[in-house]
């Protein structure tokens, strides 16, 4: 029963990728044909071809994703501590403001912000894109860390201090290891949000910062199904691999991610 359920889940996850695998190797494939009339390696070549911007896109997406993940966690960690540990006046307001960027459509926000970014010289640059992508990611990081801190027994930190650890080493040797599952979840979540972000990257990057989603949309726009399939696979697979690699880092208590680790 359990096995059947897992199999079903796996099928649901991987089956939509199957047509992509077919498309990526198919050349001409017209209406009445059941199968492509000829096969091509163009899709695969595209991935390794230095003249196309695919490899560069992969690199750009990775760099932006890592930077966004790092900064969002650095901001979300102390914010989450305040939200999870302290009962202060206006806590609910702060919580709502944190979630506001998630509720308001990104397109509207990005359009408004673009004006300022152009004035500040941040448009059309990787740093501008990283900055704007903090908006949809910091709320998630703060929320994940908020929940983690709410469950943290701060007496561990007090104990560490009586054992001679100052504030910095208490953070590094006690708090961070205790919150490791939350850190992994927050880092993954923010990376994935950044990885699949399209609208904000297009508006703030001004078409100069070419992440994988941008290349993918361009390929779809030009009806090049082979290139689109190749890029789609490239967008989908790294996050999947990343999730599987990270799963063992999560302890058994951290709920939803456990399933991935057992696959």
């Amino acid at each position, binding site marked *: 029963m359990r096995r059947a359920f897992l199999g079903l889940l796996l099928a649901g996850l991987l089956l939509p990728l199957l047509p992509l695998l077919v498309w990526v190797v198919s050349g001409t494939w017209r209406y009445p044909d059941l199968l492509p009339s000829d096969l091509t390696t163009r899709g695969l070549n595209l991935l390794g071809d230095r003249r196309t911007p695919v490899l560069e896109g992969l690199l750009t997406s990775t760099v932006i994703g890592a930077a966004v993940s790092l900064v969002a966690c650095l901001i979300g960690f102390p914010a989450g501590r305040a939200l999870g540990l302290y009962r202060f006046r206006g806590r609910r307001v702060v919580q709502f403001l944190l979630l506001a960027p998630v509720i308001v459509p990104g397109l509207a926000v990005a359009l408004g912000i673009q004006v300022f970014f152009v004035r500040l010289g941040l448009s059309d640059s990787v740093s501008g894109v990283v900055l704007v992508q903090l908006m949809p990611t910091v709320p998630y990081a703060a929320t994940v860390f908020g929940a983690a801190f709410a469950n943290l027994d701060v007496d561990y930190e007090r104990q560490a*201090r*009586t*054992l001679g650890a100052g504030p910095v080493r208490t953070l590094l040797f006690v708090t961070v290891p205790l919150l490791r599952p939350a850190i992994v979840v927050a880092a993954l979540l923010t990376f994935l949000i950044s990885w699949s972000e399209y609208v904000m990257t297009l508006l703030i990057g001004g078409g100069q910062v070419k992440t994988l989603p941008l290349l993918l949309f361009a390929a779809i726009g030009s009806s090049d199904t082979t290139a689109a399939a190749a890029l789609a696979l490239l967008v989908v697979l790294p996050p999947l691999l990343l999730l599987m690699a990270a799963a063992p880092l999560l302890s058994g208590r951290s709920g939803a991610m456990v399933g991935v680790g057992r696959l």
Partner: protein
Amino acid sequence: MTGADVAIVQVTKRFGATLAVDDLSLRVPPGSLTALLGPSGCGKSTTLSLLAGLQHPDSGDVRVDGISVLAVPAERRPVALVVQKPLLFPHLSVAQNVGFGLRMARVDRRRRSRLVAEMLDRVQLPELADRRVGELSGGQEQRVALARALVLQPRVLLLDEPFSQLDTGLRVQMRALVRRLHDESEVTTLFVTHDQVEAVEVADTIALMQEGRLAGHGEPETFYQRPPSLAAARFFGVTNELPGCVQGGRFCSRTGLTLPTDLPNGEAVLVVRPDRMEMVDHRGPDTLDGVVTAARFAGSHIAVDVEIEPGRTLTAHVPVGATIALGSGVHLCLPPSACTLFGAGGRA
């Protein structure tokens, strides 16, 4: 290194509207094992937090060997704290937990592992060094917590109800372990407990705290024989109280018992422990007449309730085997040496 001389000087600590510690002064001599005893919520744990540096007093001073440590942060004080929860770091092994403080003190790896092994021997857990923390029993957890604190050779050891979550048999063993570890290292130890039996059993001296104040400080025996206050007497299980008044150097209870005293004139209360009262055959100067209303077998003695006036009952402990008839008239003897008098305000 031997234990430090610890002094709390006129310390006050408030949390919002509640006064947790109220002008407390307490001196713990070097190398002693002192129990800080009191009902829950009396400020014992706050006092330990103040000593450990995890809380700051609103006023007053905390001194170690005569030098104020208020400006010293918790991580630099020569003070170790073990609390009710073991608080072992779940991401570290037993040995790594014990070595945590040494690592923070930048003791090199070889020396560290030697000291950790020695310490685990002293708490009788050498075989558990490589275990994960989650696999330990409650008693083992507290032993590891003790080892983790003591391996740093602190000059003051603070124990905040460390065994209150363990079952009775284990608690007795752990008290003996604390006693032994203390005697070996002579670290000044302050042991917080709300259980007077535990305090009497483990400690050299007892400091009794009530409502944020020191209600008495002395050897365990004193609290039984000469309780420093009415509240202290009650906390140590004195149930027999005779109200009366003092006039011209003589206390006279409402039931007619008199006793010389140097208390000033006014209301006073005489207290006497049940185990110091006797049932005698003849009326005498120190006796009261009463009627037996109840008798309970209590293992080592029989507790007999004697009504001496309507609504006032005294309890006497009499030897097992004595014949007691319910409803019979008896004479209760209160030897003057067993009686303590408290004037207005509950002071002796």
